[in-house]
C-alpha cells in the first residue's frame, strides 16, 4: 500500500514521458492530475489506517526489497509511515494535486509536447518527494533528496528560452552541491558511528547515551546534516538560489519552492529529532541560523519589486522560523508551521500566478495596482493568504507561528524570541505592501512588460486581451487553498497536532507548555505585532504613499543595500566564484591541461602531410614534455623516499 503512494505519480511520469508527444493536453493533464489525486486518496486511506492504531505504535512499514546487503551492511528499500511522514505525504499529495490542477490552466498556452514534459517533471518530482518523506533510512531518503533536486533544476529552467532561467537552474544546482557534500558526509559518518542507516535504529542506539555537552561525533554528524538542510531549505549561507529559482513557472514555485521540496531540510531534522536532540550545540546553531535567516530575508522582502521575489524571500524567512523551532527543540511546532505554511504560501504563489497570468507576464509590483476590481477571486483569496501569513488570530499562520515563538520564549531563548517577533512584524509589513501595491490604488498605466524579451512565453497570447480573473480551474484551487489557510490551524488546537506527532520525535521533545499566564501574554504580544505590521503597511502603502517616498529618500542608503539583497550575490561572486573560475580556467587550464600543439589539433585534416608532419610537431615538445612529467613523477616519489 505504501509503495503505491510514490508509484502512482511515477506511472503518470512514465506515461507522459514516453507518449507525451502524442498526447493532447487534455489527456496529458488528466493523466498527471489523476495520478496525483489517486496518490492522495491512497495516502488518506493509509493515514486513516495509521490512526486506527494505538497512538504509541502508529507505524506502518513496507520493505520493498533488500536493496543492499553485504556483510555488516544491510540497507533495505523500506518505506515507513509514522505520524511525521503522514503529515508530509498529505501535504505533498494534497497540495500537489491542487497545484497539478491549477497547472492545467496555467500552462495551457504551451505546445502539446512541452505541456506533457512539464507534467512529467511535476509527477516525477512528486514521486521523489514521496520517497524522501517515506524513506525509512538515510539512503532511501537520499534517493528522494537528489531526485527532487534534479526535478527542481529541470523545472526552474523549464523556460529555457530565457537565459536567466537556465542560469537560475544552474545556480540552484551548484549551491545545492555544497549542501549535499555536507549531507553525504553526515550520512557516511552516521554509518561509521552507528553501523546502521535506519532512522529508528539510529534513534534506538542513542537511547542509552547522554547528550553531548562538548563537540563530539554526534555534533559533527548533525552539523554536517544541517549543512545539507541549509542547501535544500535555503538558509544562510546557502539561501541564494531560492530567489533566483522564481524563474520557473509559478505553480512550480508554489509546489517545489514553497510548499514541499524546500521543507525537506526541516523534515530531515524532524526525522532525526533524537539524533539532533543529543547534540545541543548543533541545535543552538540551528536556532541561531534559523532566526537570523528569518530576519535577514524578511528585511530584503520589504523592498523587492518583483512580486514573486517578495514571496521567495518570504519563504526563506518562514523556513527560518521552522529551523528556529527545530533548534529550540519544538519539533512539532516546526512541522506544524511547515504544514500551515504549505497552505498559505502555495495560495500566495498561485494568487500571484493568477495576477501574472492576467497581466501577460508582468511581475513588477510598480506596474500593478487597482487589480482588486478586475480580479475579485484572486484578490480575496490572496488577502486571506496575506492575513494568514501575518499571524492574525483565527487564521492558520497565527496558530503555528505563535506556537514557535511561545516555545522559543519558554525554552529561555529570549533574544531569539525578540528577533522572531520583530520578523513577524516585517512579515506583516511586506505582505500587506504587496497586497496594497498590487490590488489597491490606481491601476498602473498599461500592463505592458518592461522587458519583452523576458516575458513568459506562456502568457504572450494574453498581451492584448483585457484583464480577466483566474480561469475556473485556477479559481477553484485558490478557493480551496484559501479555505485551508483559514482552517488548517484548528487542527493544532489543544496540542492535538503535537500529540499526534509525539511518537516520531520521542523522547526528546520540548517540555509541555508553560502555565497559561505567560502563554496568554505572549499570544497578545504576537497579535499586537501582527496588527502593528498591517497598520504600518496600510499607512505607508495605502493611506499615505508620499510618506513611503519620504522614508525611502531618508534611508536611501539602507534601501539600496536591501534592494541589492545586502550584495550577497556580489560578495559570493567576488570571494568564491571568481577565485574558483580563475584557478580552474587560468590556473588549471594553462598548467594541467597543456595542449602544447593546439595548432595541430585544430587544423585537423587540412594538411595532407600526415605522419611526418605529426612527428615533426610531436618533436617540437609536447611528447617530450609529457614524458618529462612522467619521469618527474617518479623522481618526486624517489625524492620523497630519499629525504625521509
Amino acid at each position: 500500500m505504501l509503495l503505491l503512494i510514490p508509484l502512482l505519480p511515477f506511472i503518470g511520469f512514465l506515461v507522459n514521458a514516453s507518449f507525451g508527444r502524442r498526447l493532447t493536453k487534455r489527456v496529458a493533464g488528466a493523466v498527471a492530475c489523476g495520478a496525483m489525486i489517486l496518490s492522495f486518496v491512497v495516502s488518506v486511506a493509509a493515514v486513516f489506517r495509521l490512526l486506527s492504531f494505538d497512538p504509541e505504535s502508529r507505524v506502518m512499514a513496507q520493505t520493498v526489497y533488500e536493496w543492499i546487503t553485504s556483510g555488516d551492511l544491510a540497507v533495505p528499500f523500506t518505506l515507513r509511515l509514522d505520524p511525521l511522514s503522514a503529515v508530509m505525504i498529505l501535504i505533498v499529495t494534497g497540495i500537489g494535486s491542487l497545484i497539478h490542477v491549477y497547472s492545467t490552466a496555467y500552462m495551457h498556452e504551451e505546445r502539446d509536447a512541452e505541456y506533457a514534459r512539464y507534467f512529467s517533471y511535476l509527477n516525477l518530482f512528486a514521486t521523489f518527494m514521496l520517497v524522501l518523506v517515506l524513506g525509512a533510512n538515510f539512503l532511501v531518503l537520499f534517493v528522494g533528496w537528489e531526485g527532487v533536486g534534479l526535478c527542481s533544476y529541470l523545472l526552474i529552467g523549464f523556460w529555457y528560452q530565457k537565459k536567466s532561467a537556465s542560469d537560475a537552474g544552474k545556480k540552484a544546482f551548484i549551491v545545492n552541491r555544497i549542501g549535499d557534500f555536507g549531507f553525504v558526509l553526515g550520512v557516511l559518518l552516521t554509518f561509521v558511528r552507528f553501523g546502521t542507516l535506519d532512522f529508528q535504529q539510529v534513534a534506538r542506539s542513542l537511547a542509552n547515551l547522554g547528550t553531548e555537552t562538548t563537540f563530539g561525533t554526534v555534533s559533527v554528524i548533525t552539523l554536517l546534516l544541517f549543512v545539507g538542510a541549509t542547501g535544500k531549505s535555503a538558509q544562510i549561507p546557502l539561501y541564494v538560489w531560492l530567489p533566483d529559482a522564481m524563474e520557473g513557472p509559478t505553480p512550480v514555485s508554489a509546489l517545489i519552492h514553497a510548499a514541499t521540496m524546500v521543507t525537506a531540510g526541516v523534515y530531515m531534522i524532524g526525522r532525526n529529532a533524537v539524533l539532533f536532540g543529543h547534540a545541543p550545540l548543533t541545535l543552538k546553531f540551528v536556532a541561531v541560523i534559523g532566526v537570523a535567516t528569518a530576519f535577514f530575508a524578511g528585511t530584503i522582502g520589504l523592498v523587492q519589486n518583483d512580486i514573486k521575489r517578495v514571496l521567495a524571500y518570504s519563504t526563506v524567512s518562514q523556513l527560518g522560523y521552522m529551523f528556529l523551532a527545530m533548534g529550540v527543540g519544538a519539533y512539532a511546532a516546526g512541522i506544524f508551521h511547515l504544514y500551515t505554511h504549505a497552505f498559505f504560501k502555495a495560495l500566495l504563489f498561485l494568487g500571484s500566478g493568477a495576477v501574472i497570468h492576467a497581466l501577460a507576464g508582468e511581475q513588477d509590483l510598480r506596474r500593478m495596482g487597482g487589480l482588486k476590481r478586475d480580479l475579485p477571486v484572486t484578490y480575496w483569496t490572496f488577502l486571506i493568504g496575506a492575513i494568514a501569513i501575518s499571524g492574525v488570530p483565527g487564521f492558520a499562520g497565527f496558530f503555528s507561528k505563535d506556537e514557535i515563538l511561545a516555545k522559543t520564549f519558554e525554552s529561555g531563548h529570549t533574544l531569539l524570541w525578540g528577533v522572531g517577533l520583530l520578523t513577524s512584524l516585517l512579515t506583516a509589513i511586506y505582505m500587506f505592501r504587496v497586497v496594497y501595491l498590487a490590488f489597491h490604488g490606481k491601476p498602473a498605466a498599461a500592463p505592458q512588460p518592461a522587458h519583452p524579451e523576458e516575458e513568459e512565453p506562456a502568457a504572450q497570447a494574453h498581451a492584448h486581451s483585457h484583464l480577466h480573473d483566474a480561469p475556473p480551474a485556477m479559481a477553484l484551487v485558490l478557493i480551496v487553498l484559501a479555505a485551508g489557510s483559514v482552517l488548517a490551524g484548528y487542527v493544532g488546537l489543544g496540542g492535538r497536532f503535537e500529540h499526534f506527532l509525539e511518537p516520531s520525535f520521542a523522547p526528546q521533545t520540548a517540555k509541555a507548555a508553560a502555565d497559561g499566564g505567560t502563554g496568554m501574554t505572549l499570544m497578545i504580544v504576537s497579535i499586537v505585532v501582527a496588527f502593528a505590521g498591517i497598520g504600518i503597511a496600510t499607512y505607508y502603502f495605502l493611506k499615505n504613499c508620499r510618506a513611503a517616498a519620504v522614508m525611502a529618500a531618508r534611508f536611501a542608503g539602507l534601501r539600496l543595500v536591501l534592494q541589492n539583497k545586502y550584495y550577497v550575490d556580489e560578495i559570493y561572486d567576488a570571494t568564491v566564484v571568481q577565485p574558483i573560475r580563475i584557478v580552474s580556467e587560468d590556473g588549471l587550464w594553462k598548467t594541467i591541461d597543456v595542449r602544447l600543439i593546439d595548432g595541430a589539433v585544430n587544423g585537423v585534416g587540412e594538411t595532407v602531410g600526415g605522419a611526418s608532419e605529426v612527428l615533426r610537431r610531436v618533436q617540437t615538445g609536447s611528447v617530450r614534455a609529457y614524458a618529462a612529467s612522467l619521469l618527474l613523477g617518479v623522481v618526486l616519489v624517489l625524492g620523497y623516499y630519499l629525504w625521509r
Partner: protein
Amino acid sequence: MPAGISTSDFYYILPELVLTAGALVVLIADVLLPKDRRAALSWVTLIALGATLASLAPFASTRVEIAHGLIAVDRFALFFKILFLVAAAITVLMSVRYLEVEGASPGEYYFLILCATLGMMIMAGGIDLVTIFIGLETMAVSFYILAGFIKPSQRSNEAAVKYFLLGAFSLGILLYGMSLMYGLSGTTNLRVMATRFAGQEQNPLLVLAVILVVAGVGFKIAAVPFHMWAPDVYEGAPTPITAFLSVGSKAASFAMLLRIFVEGLPAMSGDWRLLFYVLSIVTMTVGNFAAVTQSNLKRMLAYSSIAHAGYVLIGVVAGTARGVTATLIYLLVYSFMQLGAFAVIVLLRREDVVGDELKDFSGLHVRNPFAAFAMLLFMLSLGGIPPTAGFMGKFWLFSSAIDAGYYWLAVIGVLNSAVSLYYYVRVVVFMYLKKETIGSEPKATPALAVTLAIAVAATLILGVYPRLLFEVAEASARTLGMVPITTALR
C-alpha cells in the same frame, strides 16, 4: 621454472583459444568477403565474443594455477574477462555506425579489438610477470594501431603516435621495476615472489621497484601525474576506441595492478598504499578540476575517466576484501556508464556534425528524447546520484575506505564527486535547457539503440538491484590473496 605444459592446461585457456580463433576468422573473412559485404564482419566479431563468453561457463567456480604458475584461472580473472568481453561487444555495436560515417574499412579494426581483448584477458589471469607483460603488450600494441585507425584524420594519427611513444616510454619504466622484482626474488611468479619478499620491507631496491611499477601502472590507468597522454589520445582516437580504451584498458590495468601489488607485494603494502593514497587524491582532484573547463566532450570524459581512476584507487588503498570488492564493482559499473556516454557521442556523429562538442548536445531532448534520457542517466551515474549504478559504486568505495580507517580519503572522494557533478550536469543543461540545434537529425541505428538500451538497463538495474553484482564481486575478490589492514596511515 620447470618446463613443459600439459594438455589439461589447454582446457583451462579454452576461452582465450576461442577468442584467438575468432580473431583469425575475422581476419580471413575480411579478405574473402566482397567489399560491399564487409559490414557482416561486425556479426562475426560479435559471435566470436559471444562464443568466448559462453566458453567461460565451465570455469564459473574454478580456482587453479596452470602452466606452472603462469596463469591463474579463478573468479577474479573470470569477473574481469566477462567485463572485457561485454565491453568489447558494446564497442563493436557502436563501431558499426561510426566506421560507416568515417568510411574506414572494418576488417583489421575488428581483428585488433579482439586482439586487445585477448591481451586484457591474459592480463587478468596472469600471476607471473611474464604473462602479465605479454598480455599488456598484446593489448597496448592493438590500441596503438586502433587509436590511429582513421587514417585521413590528423587528430587520430597524432593520438596514435603520442600514445605509442609515451606508452613505450612508460613501459620501459614498468619493465625496469619488474626486472628489479625478478632480480630481488629470483622468480617471476607473483605468488612465489610474495613469500620471498617477506622480511625485505626495508630493502631500498625493492622500494625502488615498487615506485617504478607504480609509475608504469599509473600510466596505464592514467593516474596523475602519469596522465598527460590521456586527454590528447582520447580526443583524437576514433570514438568507439576511446570508449574501449577508457573502459577495457583501464579495467585490465587495474586487474594487473591488483595482481602485482596485492598478490605479489603484500610485504610492501605500507609503501604502495601510501603511494596510491597520494596518487588517488591527486588524480581525483586534478581530473575533476581539469574536466570543469572542457568544452569538448571526449576530452571532458577523458579527464572524468582520470578522476574515476582516482576513485577506484580508493578501493586499492583500502586493500581489504571490501576494498577490492568495491574496486571490482566500480570498474564494472563505470564500464557501462562510460561506454553509454560514448555511444551517445557516436550517435551524434553524422556526416555533417562531429558531435563531440558540448554545443552539439544542445536541444537533444527534443530531437532524440531517448538518447537525451540515456545521456542524462549516464551523467548522473558518473556523478554518483542515486538510484543509479554510479551511486552504488561510489557508496561502496567510500564506505570501504571508511571501513579501513581512511576517513580523509572518503571525505576528499565525496568532495570530488560534488565538484564533478558540475560538469556532468552541464551536459544535461545543454540537452534539456537549450534549444538551438545544429546539423541533421541524429538518429539511432538499431545497433546503437541496442548499445544504449544495454547501458541504460545496466546503469539502472545495478543501481536499483545491486545485490547480485555485490555477491559476484565479493566472491571474485576473495580469490585474490588479501593483505591485512595496516594502521600506518590512519
